[in-house]
């Protein structure tokens, strides 16, 4: 227990030279122990946090993906119906047009899937030990404080843990938004183009107004 006694001895007391080495070793041992606890806590925390968030995230993502693809699917189904109708009724000239449109829709779907599958996100910054300052470690030197602070978090130099977190989140939101813009703008223009071509095709084939309206009503 002597190491504890030395460690908590107040800074008022003179530390004799002979004790200096011992003091250094004891404090190193203290730091090492606490560093271990910190790491263990971190690992436990990650596991717990992840488990909880996976299901919530899944549900959110599922809704997003389904809504993103439903209209694309409708274009696919509509074009396939027209394709089979044209085959039955001998409108062979239209077949290649429809197949081309199907290719465009198919490629667009692949692009959307790629976007949904991308995992770009901002790394989560945190200053784990800013709050260590609250703790009663007045006797430890500044360098030992930095030692306990793990290298697993980037030191952005900002003072508050919260500021860092907010920056990280805003950053990730921004990157997600810009990705989405990248995707939904082409999406709008791709499906808009397909819609236009399909409407033209329906008119060319002389199909009923109901069919025309069905295509015109496809929303993206």
């Amino acid at each position, binding site marked *: *227990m002597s190491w504890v006694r030395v460690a908590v001895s107040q800074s008022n007391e003179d530390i004799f030279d002979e004790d200096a080495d011992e003091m250094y070793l004891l404090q190193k041992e203290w730091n090492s122990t606490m560093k271990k606890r910190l790491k*263990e806590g971190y690992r*436990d925390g990650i596991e717990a946090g992840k488990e909880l968030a996976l299901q919530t995230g899944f549900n959110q993502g599922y*809704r997003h993906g389904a809504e993103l693809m*439903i209209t694309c699917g409708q274009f696919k189904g509509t*074009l396939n*119906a027209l394709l089979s109708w044209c085959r*039955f009724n001998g409108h062979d000239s239209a077949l290649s047009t429809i197949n081309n449109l199907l290719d465009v829709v198919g490629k667009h779907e*692949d692009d959307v899937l790629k976007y949904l599958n991308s995992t770009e996100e901002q790394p*989560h910054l945190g200053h784990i030990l800013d709050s260590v300052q609250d703790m009663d470690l007045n006797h430890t030197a500044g360098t030992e404080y930095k030692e306990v602070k793990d290298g697993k978090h980037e030191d952005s130099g900002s003072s508050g843990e919260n500021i860092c977190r907010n920056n990280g989140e805003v950053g990730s939101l921004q990157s997600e938004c810009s990705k989405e813009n990248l995707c939904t703008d082409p999406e709008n223009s791709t499906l808009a183009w397909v819609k236009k071509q399909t409407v033209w095709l329906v008119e060319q084939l002389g199909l009923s107004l109901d069919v025309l309206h069905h295509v015109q009503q496809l929303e993206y």
Partner: protein
Amino acid sequence: MPRAAMADLFDGIVMAEQRFHGEGYQEGFAEGSHTGMAEGRRYGALHGARIGSEIGCYLGFALTWHYLLQKCTDEKNSKKIRALDSLIGMIQKFPYEDPTYDKLQEDLEKIRGKFKQVCSMLNIQSDFRIRTERSSLTF
């Protein structure tokens, strides 16, 4: 050293260890939540996209054929139209965007079965080859 003081020192160490563990835990929890959400969203989005695409395809197909056949009112066609309407009804009732729907798999299978039935009535192959290259979405 008096016993009470020793006990206090022990408590002090245990508390310090718990505090460090707790700090690490909080930080890790936040990090885990963040990555868990992102990962969950990614998997969810892919699954949802597949379902959305499939259901959308059935719906677009059925609606188009419904309108194509509407003018022809002979017996053979009215059978087809009834089947198409049944499929359309099933799809429109299906909450395609809700992953927590308790009958999700069951209803999905019913819709797939109905679609195959409709295709055979229309003399169409139900496994469309949408693209000539490998499709990322296979039902």
